């Protein structure tokens, strides 16, 4: 936290903006308030959480990370993430009233992809990758809030999260509604193996109930959701899960277990962690999946393994280099069917609320699946608020 204060303060000095004493006092008070929240609650760009020894709830209204940012999250995104900070108070701007705050994320991509198919093997496109609008209604002094995460584009509006949350005085919380289930590292890339294989991604929210238990640096989440039939539970079976995470002084470790009951039962075990050393942040996650009787040939279970390791190197404010390597074994009883994926992404945040990303990605599958062997180069502009 000292790091954040130093960065924030030095940034304000450097930019020579907003140096009025009263503003700084407000900022200081807000930061202290945010820290108090952090202590008792959970982060979204996970490497930022690991780098700053914070839980997800420090920067996000949703204690499990992702979506609308807290006032602290907005200040961080405005002042500490970019190379040059704007002078306006984004937290104040986003808070329409003391009860209502808003936020947004919009990603616009330019893509070039090349597969190993013999014909028709390249594609180039511009796309609105996603545009999200967040609204949080907070009833003061009641612990009660209503949170809405609505995808506005591309296509017609799709609700991603609609949650009623009650936060107890000691920091525990209970959520009900359509929600992202707490599982592993909540990385932004939904196409990562660990997010695809497990189905725990930003494209796949579920209807259910979650209880979050917060004790000092430990968070434990229990949840029940519809599972494989998310929109309506027509199989009388549910998905049960638990996630636990502890922040140590220089690193964090977390784990989880999921039982997705149903006609075909699925069990998932998950272990993840992160640590930070100087300007380098390291993240890793391993998921082990057991798909009951999923082999249609011999009715045996299929056991899968998905793993991710990521290095982030922030050598200068506003700049980050991200290297990700992934591994997926779709059936541990079958040899030579493994898949890998490597990404190298440069992230530059020149100004508050705008991030530019240039990345290259290589996906390798078995030679027979020519469409699944491809290289991608993309440029993304990310507006966040």
């Amino acid at each position: 936290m000292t790091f954040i204060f130093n960065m924030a303060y030095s940034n304000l000095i450097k930019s020579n903006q907003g140096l009025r004493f009263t503003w700084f006092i407000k900022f200081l008070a807000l930061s202290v308030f945010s820290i108090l929240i952090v202590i008792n609650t959970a982060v979204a760009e996970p490497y930022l959480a690991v780098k700053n020894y914070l839980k997800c709830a420090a920067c996000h209204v949703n204690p499990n990370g992702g979506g609308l940012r807290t006032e602290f999250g907005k200040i961080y995104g405005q002042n500490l993430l970019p190379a040059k900070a704007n002078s306006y108070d984004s937290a104040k701007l986003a808070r329409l009233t003391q009860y209502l705050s808003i936020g947004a994320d919009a990603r616009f991509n330019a893509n070039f992809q090349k597969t190993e198919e013999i014909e028709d093997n390249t594609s180039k496109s511009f796309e609105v990758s996603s545009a999200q609008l967040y609204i949080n209604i907070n009833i003061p002094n009641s612990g009660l809030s209503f949170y809405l995460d609505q995808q506005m584009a591309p296509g017609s509006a799709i609700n991603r999260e609609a949650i009623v949350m009650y936060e107890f005085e000691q920091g525990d919380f209970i959520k009900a509604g359509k929600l992202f289930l707490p599982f592993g590292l909540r990385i932004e890339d939904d196409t990562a193996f660990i997010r695809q294989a497990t189905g725990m991604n930003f494209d796949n929210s579920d209807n259910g109930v979650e209880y979050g238990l917060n004790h000092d640096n430990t968070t434990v989440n229990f949840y029940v959701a519809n599972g494989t039939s998310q929109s309506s539970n027509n199989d009388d079976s549910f998905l049960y899960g638990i996630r636990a995470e502890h922040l140590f002084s220089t690193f964090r470790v977390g784990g989880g277990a999921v039982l997705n009951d149903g006609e075909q039962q699925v069990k998932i075990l998950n272990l993840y962690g992160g640590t930070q050393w100087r300007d380098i942040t390291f993240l890793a996650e391993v998921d082990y999946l057991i798909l009951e009787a999923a082999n249609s040939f011999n009715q045996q279970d299929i056991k899968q393994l998905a793993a991710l390791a990521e290095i982030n190197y922030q050598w200068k404010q506003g700049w980050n280099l991200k290297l990700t390597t992934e591994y997926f074994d779709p059936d541990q009883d079958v040899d030579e069917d493994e898949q890998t994926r490597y990404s190298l992404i440069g992230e530059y945040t020149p100004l508050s609320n705008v991030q530019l990303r240039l990345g290259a990605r290589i996906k390798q599958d078995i030679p027979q699946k020519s469409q699944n062997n491809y290289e991608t180069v993309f440029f993304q502009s990310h507006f966040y608020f």
Partner: protein
Amino acid sequence: MNIFNSFITVGFLSLALTACNAGNGDSLNDQGRPIDEIGEVMDLPDPDSDSIKPTLASIQDKVFTPICASCHGGANPAAGQDLSSLENSIINLINVTSSNTLFKRVLPGSAEESYLYLKITGDSRAGSRMPLGQPALNQEKILAIKKWIEDGAVIPESSSNSARVSRVNIKERRITREINDQNFASNVDYIWRLNEPLVVVFWFNKPMSFDYLTPEQVLFTAYDSNDSKENDNWLFDSSNISINIINDHILQLSISEVARDVSHINIQLNKSSISTLTTSLGQQLDGDFDGVDGGVFSYDIHF
């Protein structure tokens, strides 16, 4: 921190992380399964053929299993839509309402009204283009899916799924209503003119045997404007009914001489006391959608 040292550290860690390689695919088929496994026993596509065909078995083999099922399959299929096997694809696609409730995931006979087709072509009404984060499907695959849908989204004849009516539409008036398990009612806004035939088209999910179907075996019951009285209904004379077999899974029925005072018409197929409809392999039509072969298929048209 010395930047040079940082780069060395990052480089070293990077090398360590990229040590894993993808499988070489030895002894695996083009779905990544051992070649001695025969997972699907129904209408297997020609293994020697690399090109995709407009059949569900071929689309499953070339698109759904190798590409879509990485998300729409496994532990927690995206959107609850499991496409990992042919059976699952049938259950999760055909006539299932999509996340945009204006569309079915697959509406037999109409690719432009099918969310699946909109998704793979990047139509703005359907959100993110699929496959998500992967190269778009090539034209050959897209056209095969389009043709499969427009041909009626027929499922393999030998599949264990029931033979059903997958869609009914009324020609001439351009009024279409999708099949709904609970309610087969269709609303027509205006009165049919005398002598103009009412043309109803039935789409079936499997190839059927229509060879022995006669107009007498189809029950057209008309109700007058006060259909609460049981006596105010009558069967149409079979001489006013004509059957036109479009192909092995599309049947067109025409009825002429519909009087002005008719408030609605009920059409019944597969009434066991009169006749039964079967697939070309002898499976009886599941007319009442109860998952058991047999049962009357009943469809109402209100004027």
